[in-house]
């Protein structure tokens, strides 16, 4: 079982007729995710996923018929802010934004707005929520992990798939992988994600996959030390990254000495979190 979603979660896919949206909607559908509708302005009235799922022009139209619980966005960056507000107003209580490149100020506004409406945002620029062997509200390949009891939180999608695949090779399974996204502002942070995993009966320990930039890993370290009942491990990347350059993700940069892997390793170790910067050592920090 998973945090935040399960096989009864009713999902709307925003941007379902686009290239990314249709590709991933199909994969999620195959895994057993209950996709009850798609939204694509101008495409309302059509059917997708083997003529099984209706497409609506608006979230409101889709919600009137389906009363869904969650939405997932594959909307291009230019339209994504509008789509996020539309989702916030629709009545779903969980929104996953896969889209990369949403302006920061927009995300800041969306976070504030969703907070006031009690809607949880995951992302943007994230891989979504993945429950191996169960349900998938995101872009993780179904075969990259096996079911298990380790909760994974990652700023980077592909890296988390790679890591889970390495874990699979040594027989370590995953309860849920939560992609929180690589942007400067995240709807759900490491600390909030730790809180969710701490309450989850299917998770016994948590692996954070962090990277350079910001102080969120450091904040999460404090949470892990003082509030968590479950053990936390961390894998951090970017120890060889130069200062002042943005390493692909909009949140991944070192500035004024803030955001280095070294500082994160120190903060995490002080808090009793087992840390590694070597991909080959992940198995070690997850055992014992």
């Amino acid at each position, binding site marked *: 079982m998973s945090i935040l979603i399960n096989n009864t979660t009713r999902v709307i896919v925003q941007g379902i007729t686009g290239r990314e949206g249709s590709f991933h909607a199909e994969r999620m559908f195959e895994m057993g995710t209950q996709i009850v509708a798609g939204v694509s302005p101008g495409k309302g009235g059509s059917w997708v996923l083997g003529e099984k799922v209706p497409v609506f022009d608006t979230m409101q139209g889709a919600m009137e018929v389906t009363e869904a619980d969650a939405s997932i966005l594959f909307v291009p960056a230019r339209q994504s802010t509008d789509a996020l507000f539309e989702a916030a107003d629709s009545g779903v209580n969980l929104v996953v934004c896969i889209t990369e490149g949403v302006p*920061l*100020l927009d995300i800041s506004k969306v976070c504030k707005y969703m907070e006031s409406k009690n809607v949880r945002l995951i992302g943007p620029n994230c891989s979504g929520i993945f429950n191996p062997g169960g349900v998938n509200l995101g872009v993780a390949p179904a075969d990259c992990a096996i079911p298990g009891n380790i909760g994974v939180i990652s700023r980077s999608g592909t890296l988390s*798939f790679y890591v889970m*695949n390495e874990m699979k090779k040594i027989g370590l399974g995953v309860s849920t992988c939560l992609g929180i996204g690589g942007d400067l502002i*995240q709807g759900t942070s490491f600390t909030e994600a730790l809180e969710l995993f701490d309450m989850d009966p299917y998770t016994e320990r948590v692996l954070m996959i962090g990277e350079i930039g910001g102080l969120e890993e450091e904040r999460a370290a404090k949470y892990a030390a003082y509030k968590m009942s479950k053990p936390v491990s961390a894998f951090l*990347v970017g120890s060889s990254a130069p200062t002042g350059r943005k390493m692909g993700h909009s949140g*991944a940069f070192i500035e*004024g000495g803030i955001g280095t892997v070294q500082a994160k390793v120190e903060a995490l170790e002080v808090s009793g979190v087992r840390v590694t*910067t070597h991909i*080959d050592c992940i198995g070690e920090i997850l055992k014992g």
Partner: protein
Amino acid sequence: MKLLEYQSKKLFRQYGIPVPTGQVTSIARDAKHISEEIGLPVVVKAQVLVEGRGAAGGIRLVRTPEEAEVQAAEILSLRIHGLPVRKVQIDEAISIEKEYFIVITFDRSKKQPLLMMYDSGTIYIETAANALFDHLERVYIDPLIGLQRYQIRQLAYRLDFPNKFLRSLGEICFGMWRLFSDLDARMVAINPLAITNDQRLLALDGKITLDSNADFRHTSQLDFLDDPLLNAAEIEAHKHGLEYIKLPGNISCMVNGAGLTMATLDMIADEGGSPANFLDLGSGVNNESVNAAMKILLTDPDTKVVIINIFGGIIRCGDVAAGVQRAMQNYNPQIPILIHFDGSDAETGYAMLRESRVMLMSSLSEAIKRAVEIASGNV
């Protein structure tokens, strides 16, 4: 993208933030008449994106027009921390009575902008912008309602800011907030904001960093701003949807996903090697973009070996393999190319390249060890 001082000051003027009388130029000869127009003495300031340009000789006080030309010429011939100086800003020289530092930036943990102010000493803006400095006075800005006047009063009273400048401070803070939100900045800072001996409130230097996610909203305004940090290959990469950063080493890399790219670079460094670049193929991979990526790596004169690390799932190893095949035909590279595929369709990718002159590696750590050996000449 980070703006240079003269670009920031131009925007400050547009947003009603007072700056010293000044002008920018790339020609030393012009410094003479510019300094005469402004009125001497003036300061000649190197336009380069580094901290501590003053200590590196990039800021000079001059008293005569002739001296302005000589000093401008000298500064324009400098490289400061490796970066060439292409322009100088010439400003009236200011006598300072008191200095402040003001910044608007995002607080990651609060997920919203904040306005911070500090009333003495020099400070690295970027450090403060990460909100580590608990002693900086701050107010959080609700992005849905914007900065409010009472918040500026709060800050001012906490810092005992002189009453007679309170109104101007308000205009400056509002100007900063409008600039921040209109242009989608990640940071707008004035360092320092000075009360001058002749009782003016002026922004003597400014730093603006823009949010590249919002570039699509600002194409026309930003035309005049060439990003001085990008080199030609980096610009070419952007056209193909690639995230590429040139680094000082000799092992070129092509990876998918920003995180996996960083992890690969770390492994190279751990093994004693030195990466020549960061290159994330992104999620829209095709034949074309892989070919373009290969071209960039193969034409980099520093490249001694190329390592390709792909995790199939969102993108297909097969698509990458097809692009590699095409690049092998197009560029007939003489440098060794090592490939590691993993994930959903790794086998397909390997099968496609079995006949090509590339080294297929089943283990990433082996591939990296080998690349480091080749790059250091110990084959």
